[in-house]
């Protein structure tokens, strides 16, 4: 009964919203928008109708069959996102541990890093295009340049905040080197690292799209822009929908990973709450 109730609560609002939009999205639009703009916003059934043909299925053209946009555009975009995000994670954590463990280094670099973090990553896109030319490398660099700051700065914070008693214990037992890094430093900092990684993921998705808007021949962002320029609005909105779905799926995946990595932390929190 309880499970049923929970499921009901989860689906109630989204399902209601979907049903209302399915039947009335055209009416709502006509109510809200002036006549000449209605063309830009197709109704929900129309968007969903073109969705599979546009994004998932093989395309038949007079010139021959083209692969589906899923494999031709979406997957390459996601691979670039994965590469950029993974590299940012690697570099960010490595630099973060190095900077966080040394007090003078931290004092020296903190203002510089705060400044670099504050630069909107999108503003760097033209710079990177100038520097690295047009191609996959630049797009990956764009993603790294935005993702790295939250990871780096949160790792620094996490490494700085390690428990001094545990640090002394490590020293007493002569736990050093890689063992210390793996079982003490990274473990203690992992809640913060995960927070940084979560912020970086949403920045990464945004930059994945933006890196494809200029000087690109494939990719999710590029295709959506192509539809806009070609006045194919149902297809464009289907792309927006797909992008939203990708965001949701990635954040769900992230939560799964987070729950595994931080299982000890959440357990500890629950225990602390219960005892206080």
């Amino acid at each position: 009964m309880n499970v049923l109730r929970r499921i009901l609560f989860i689906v109630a609002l989204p399902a209601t919203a979907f049903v209302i939009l399915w039947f009335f999205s055209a009416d709502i639009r006509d109510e809200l928008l002036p006549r000449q703009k209605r063309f830009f916003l197709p109704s929900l059934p129309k968007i969903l109708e073109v969705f599979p043909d546009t994004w998932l299925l093989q395309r038949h053209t007079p010139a021959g069959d083209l692969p589906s946009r899923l494999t031709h555009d979406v997957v390459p975009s996601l691979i670039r996102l994965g590469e950029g995000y993974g590299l940012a994670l690697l570099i960010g954590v490595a630099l973060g541990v190095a900077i966080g463990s040394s007090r003078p280094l931290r004092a020296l670099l903190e203002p510089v890093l705060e400044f670099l973090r504050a630069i909107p990553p999108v503003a760097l896109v033209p710079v990177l295009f100038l520097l690295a030319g047009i191609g996959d490398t630049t797009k990956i660099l764009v993603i790294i340049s935005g993702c790295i700051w939250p990871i780096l700065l949160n790792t620094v914070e996490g490494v700085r905040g390690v428990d001094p008693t545990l640090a002394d214990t490590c020293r007493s037992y002569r736990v050093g080197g890689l063992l210390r890094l793996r079982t003490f430093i990274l473990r203690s900092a992992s809640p913060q690292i995960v927070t940084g990684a979560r912020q970086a993921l949403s920045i990464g998705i945004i930059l994945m799209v933006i890196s494809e808007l200029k000087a690109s021949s494939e990719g999710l962002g590029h295709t959506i822009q192509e539809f806009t320029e070609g006045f194919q609005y149902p297809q464009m909105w289907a792309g927006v929908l797909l992008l939203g779905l990708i965001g949701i799926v990635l954040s769900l995946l992230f939560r799964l990973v987070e729950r595994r990595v931080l299982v000890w932390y959440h357990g500890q929190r629950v225990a602390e709450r219960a005892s206080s």
Partner: protein
Amino acid sequence: MTQPSSVLSRAGRSPALLGLLGLVAFGGLLEVLPRIGVLPSEYFPPSSRILVALWHELGRAGTPAIPAFGTALGDTLTTWLTGLAIAVAGGAVVGVVIGSVPLLRELTASSIEFLRPIPSVALIPGLVVLYTDVVSTLVIVVYASFWQMLIQVLYGVGDVDPVARDTARSYRLGVLHRIRYLLWPTALPYALTGIRLSAAVALILTITGELIIGSPGLGENINLAYTALDAPTMYALIVVTGLIGVVANTLTRAAERRILRWHPSVRGEIPV
């Protein structure tokens, strides 16, 4: 604890000085690297040339094609602060209402989790065909920063101490008193964190909107400098956006410390 073995660690006792040293060294590095040819100087001008470009940019009169620096800065700040104000107010009101009614909280949880990860740039193509440039930018700014605020306020409202809540109930505190003495002190630190995060996100989205949609502001000027292959001006404007971010972050953190000086998390920081 560590032995003061090097000059660096001795200087570590005055972190502000070291930080300044770091900034100067960073500027110096960006001056030297392009000059000795490690970085291509036509794309990566030395920092002195960026400063000169910034100086020129500050004094340049506006043209119809490229608005003056002051105008662009004003446009950016207006969009940013308007969007931030809407998002913060909306996030706070919605957060308190949803957070204090358990039934609403349960009903909306899945929808919030569903809508929040939708990347705001996904909305851009749709918005630009429906609205003017300025409104489109404002919408993505509000959309992105609203969630930051909402989530923080929801956490804050949910964090009310059960003992304190029961005490309030025992003393039959009315709604207003409960908001004043129970909800407000608990949720305030969360709300302030929410404002700080929202401010950072809103600024990033403002510049993004200006760059991509082309609404007036610093982002548009960055794009114009890029199109004109005027690298020094482009970097100068990027530096300005970074500085705005640093100032915003410093101000909100200082305000946080001042407003929350009674709060244990701030009080614990002082004796070092």
